[in-house]
Every structure is written in C-alpha cells, then in structure tokens.
C-alpha cells in the first residue's frame, strides 16, 4: 500500500515538473492570437483614437468641440440608449416566454415538441440583410401584408418605417424577431442547469408552479441571466445592419443610433476624422456601461466576471 502511494506521488511530481519545465510553452500557443489582436484590434483602435484628435493633419481637439454642439450627434446618443434599453427589455421578455413554453412542452413530452423548438428558433438562421428585406416588404405602406391584415381592423396606410413616431418601434420589433432565438436557447440551457431535486422537494412541500419559478428557477439561473444581460446590452450597442436597411437612420434621425451615424459620417460625408471622434465617444460609453454593469450585477463566479 505504501509503495503504491509513493509511485503515485512520484508520477504526480513528474507531471508537475513537466508543466514547470515548459514555461515558454504557453506563449507558443498564444502567438497567433497575439498577432491577430495586435494587427486587427490594437492598431486600428489606436489609429482611430489618433484620427479623432486630428484636424487638417494637425493635433486638435476640434472634432470633440464640434461634437458638443452637434445636435445630430446628441440625438444619436439618446436614440442609442433608447434602442438599447427597449431592445434589452423586449428580447429578454420574448426569450423568457419562448423558453418557458418550450421547456414546459418538452417536460410534458408533448408530441412534436422538438419540431416546435426548431420552428420557433428558425430566425436565427436568417441573415440580417434578408430579415430586413422581408420586413421591408411586409411593412410596405401601400402593398405590404401587415397593412393589409390591419385593414380588417382599421383602414390605414400606416408608414411603419416612414413615420418618425413608429420607426423606432418597427426597428425594435424586427431586431427582436431576428435575434431572440439565441436568447431562447441560452435561457433554455439555463433552465436545464437547475437540479430537478429542488423541484421535487418543492412539489412535495406543495409549492405551486409559479412559486417554484420565482423561488427556485430564477435564483438558480440568476448568474447566467446577468451574464446574458451584459452580453445583450454590449451587443445591442453594436447593432447596425438591421437598422441600416430598414430606415438608414431616418426618418428625421428617429432611428439614427451612433453606429449608423459613424458609418454615415465616414462613408457618406467622408468626414473620417469626425467619425473617429464619434467612435471614441461610443467606445467610452460602451466601456463605462460595461464596467458599471460588471460592478452592479455582482457576479458570484470569478470567471464570468472577467
């Protein structure tokens, strides 16, 4: 017996030595990603920051001073926050409801449950461009099917994307339609992490389904939900394609988020340095929001909080 443990610790030592001897080994594995990050991330980032401080090839704060009195830019900050807020609330709700229904149907072994899941999450496979085009067609004021269906209720030629009160809502709906499946799948995966023994204990104690949901399910998945919330918010700051195709930021800047404005300034008006300044502001906003969220959400697990 004693001999055995000796052999074991000997082996373990051998492994430890093996790891210790290869100190430069990890860097070999990291080298490719370091090159990629330096070349495609760090350099462009500094380039962008440098350009934002440039006017006529000279160092200047001009771009930032101009920003402060640019009402289009100030409007875009407002629209961005409005979009992020409403989108996050909406997609979380839709994700939750769809995940709950799928979860229940799979729990009860309803025939066809798997096919439902596949159908419900199908928009995940549709490219942004295609999603936008389909909805452009359906929301067409004069020949679109949505207005046709609504004509049974009210006689209207609603300009879903040309009316500045409705445009942002339409854009939000399309974004959520296109992107909720990922949320459904993630929330569904979260439900599966809750040990069934907890539910069994609760039903023995006579807790109703709704009570079980609020006292068992929600607390158990809170960490994953916080992480998902963080990702949703960070990702929604980046949204471009869907908004661009539906409205190009219009009507009257009603859907012009910062991403749209940057692209317009850079490639429509060719104010590249000015666009860089807006980019830096957006970057700071995303950074501050992320840090705030990381602090405020207080992740229990160290790794998720990185």
């Amino acid at each position: 017996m004693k001999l055995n443990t000796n052999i074991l610790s000997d082996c373990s030592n051998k492994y430890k030595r093996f790891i210790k001897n290869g100190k430069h080994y990890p860097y070999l594995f990291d080298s490719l990603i370091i090159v990629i990050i330096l070349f495609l991330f760090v350099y462009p980032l500094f380039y962008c920051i440098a350009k934002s401080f440039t006017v006529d090839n000279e160092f200047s704060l001009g771009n930032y001073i101009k920003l402060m009195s640019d009402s289009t830019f100030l409007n875009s900050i407002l629209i961005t926050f409005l979009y992020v807020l409403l989108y996050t609330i909406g997609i979380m709700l839709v994700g939750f409801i769809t995940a709950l229904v799928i979860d229940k149907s799979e729990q009860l072994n309803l025939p066809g449950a798997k096919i439902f899941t596949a159908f419900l999450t199908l928009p995940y496979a549709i490219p942004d461009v295609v999603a936008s085009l389909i909805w452009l067609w359906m929301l067409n004021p004069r020949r679109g099917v949505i207005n046709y269906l609504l004509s049974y209720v009210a006689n209207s030629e609603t300009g879903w994307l040309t009316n500045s009160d409705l445009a942002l809502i339409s854009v939000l709906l399309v974004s959520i339609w296109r992107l909720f499946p990922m949320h459904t799948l993630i929330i569904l995966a979260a439900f599966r992490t809750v040990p069934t023994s907890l539910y069994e204990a609760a039903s023995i104690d006579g807790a109703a389904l709704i009570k079980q949901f609020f006292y068992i399910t929600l607390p158990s998945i809170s960490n994953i939900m916080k992480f998902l919330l963080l990702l949703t918010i960070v990702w929604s700051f980046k949204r471009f394609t869907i908004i661009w195709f539906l409205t190009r930021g219009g009507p009257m800047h009603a859907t012009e988020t910062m991403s749209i404005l940057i692209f317009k300034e850079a490639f429509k008006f060719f104010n590249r340095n000015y666009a860089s300044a807006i980019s830096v502001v957006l970057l700071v906003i995303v950074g501050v929001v992320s840090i705030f969220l990381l602090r405020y959400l207080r992740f229990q697990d160290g790794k998720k909080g990185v």
Partner: protein
Amino acid sequence: MQKIKTLNLYIYAMIFLMIIVIAFPLYWMVLTSFQSTTQATSYPPSLFFKSFSLEKMKWVITETKIIIWIMNSLLVSLGVVFMNLLVSVPAAYSIAKFRIKFNNILLLIVLVTQMIPQAIMVVPLFEIFKSLRLINNLFSVILANIILTLPLGTWILIGFFENIPTEIEEAAVIDGASRTMLFFKISLPLTYPAMITVAIITFFDAWNEYMYSYTYIHNQDKWVGTVGVASFIGQYLTDWQAIMVSSLLFSFAPMMIYIFFRKYIVRGVSEGFSKG
C-alpha cells in the same frame, strides 16, 4: 389527469400562436417567391398559394450574379471558419491549461474585443487594407471577420478544454507523451464536437456580415451575398418578388445548416453558458 390535459391544451395554443407570429415572415418570403409575378405583387395579396411559378427564380438566377455572390459568401465564410479555428484553438487550449498571469490578461483582451462596435473598426481597417493593397480582395473581408468571431469561439473552446480531466493528461505524460503529442493526440480529438459548434457559429456570423464586405469590396464580381442581395433594393426598387427570391436563395444555405446541425449549436450554447 384532467388538469394536465388542459395545461397541454394551453401550451399547444401558445405554441401555435408563437409559430404563426415567428414563422409568418419566412412563409411570406416563400409565398412571394414562388407565385406568378402578377399574383405575388397584386394588392390585396392572397394569404395562400393560388399559383405556383418558377419564372422569377429562373430570371434571378440567369439575369443576376446571385450564384457568384453566394459562392463568394461560401468562400469567405469557410475562410473565416478555418482562420478562426486556427487561431482560437491553440489560444483556448493555452488559456484553459496554463494558469499564468499573461493568459488572464489575454482572456480579458479577447473579451474586450467583443465589446467594440464594428462601426469603429471599419475605417481604420480600411486604411490598413488599403496600404496592404487588399481592397477589392476577399481576403480583407476574411481578416476583418476574424476579429468579430474570435471572442465567442475562443470562449466556447476554453470551456471545452477546461472540461478535459487533468488525469488524462497526467497519465499521458507519465507514459512519456511529449508536449506536442499532448495537444494533438489527447486534447484536440476530445474537443472535435466543440470545434464543430464553433465552426457553425462562425460560419453564421461570417455569412451574416455586411459592413466590412460592403466597404472593402467594390468589384461586382467579388461581392458577397449580403452586398449582392442588398443591391437589389437600389436596382429593382419595386420588384419585391426579385428581392424575395434572392433573399430566399441567399438564406437557403444557413437554413439547411441550422436544420441539420441544430444540436451542435444548442450544445455549444449550453456548454458555453452553463459553466456557472
């Protein structure tokens, strides 16, 4: 028993309603594509198939470059998948296996790249590619896409590498395995399923990408699908049927992949998000 029956009924009703709302736009795309042109664009529209016709499909395939664009998309997406795996697999292995300070910083940077809006990178990358004479070259789109898809792929792979028990590697070392063998013969084969997941997710992202492809490629023959399909709005402004047909053709590949490989996506998501 009766209670469960009524519950089932409610759930069926909910599912039915949800499927109608969610699948209707896709149904509408198919309906518009396969009807005769007069039928498809008439108003008021009919909600069901009244006629079946491939005339627009033929026209789009023969008269536009949609097939070339889809092929370009395929080329770019496969390129991005390959490059992404080439970069993210070793990095994820290193981050998961070697607990050194540098790797923590690396992980942080990889996650930060995920936060950068694409609109910020598009101009600087344009200047870089211009100086490398890569504008109008599909390789520039591949390179630009890597940085978009890298973080998620690395993140998922880290989880899988961490799940490999250390005992397996220990045993291999005691049996005299070299470092290279440890990586190629032990860890790599165990993560093949994860690599398929990452490959599929990356493929979707690359297939979906528009901004870089639009700004870096000007030659019509080199356009990718997103740019090509989008160009229909300008060119055939009111020909909604042509727009729907090209959309359908372009989303055919990802839809098939999604239908047949859904379990890999679901598993990747579950693994990536259930680590605690």
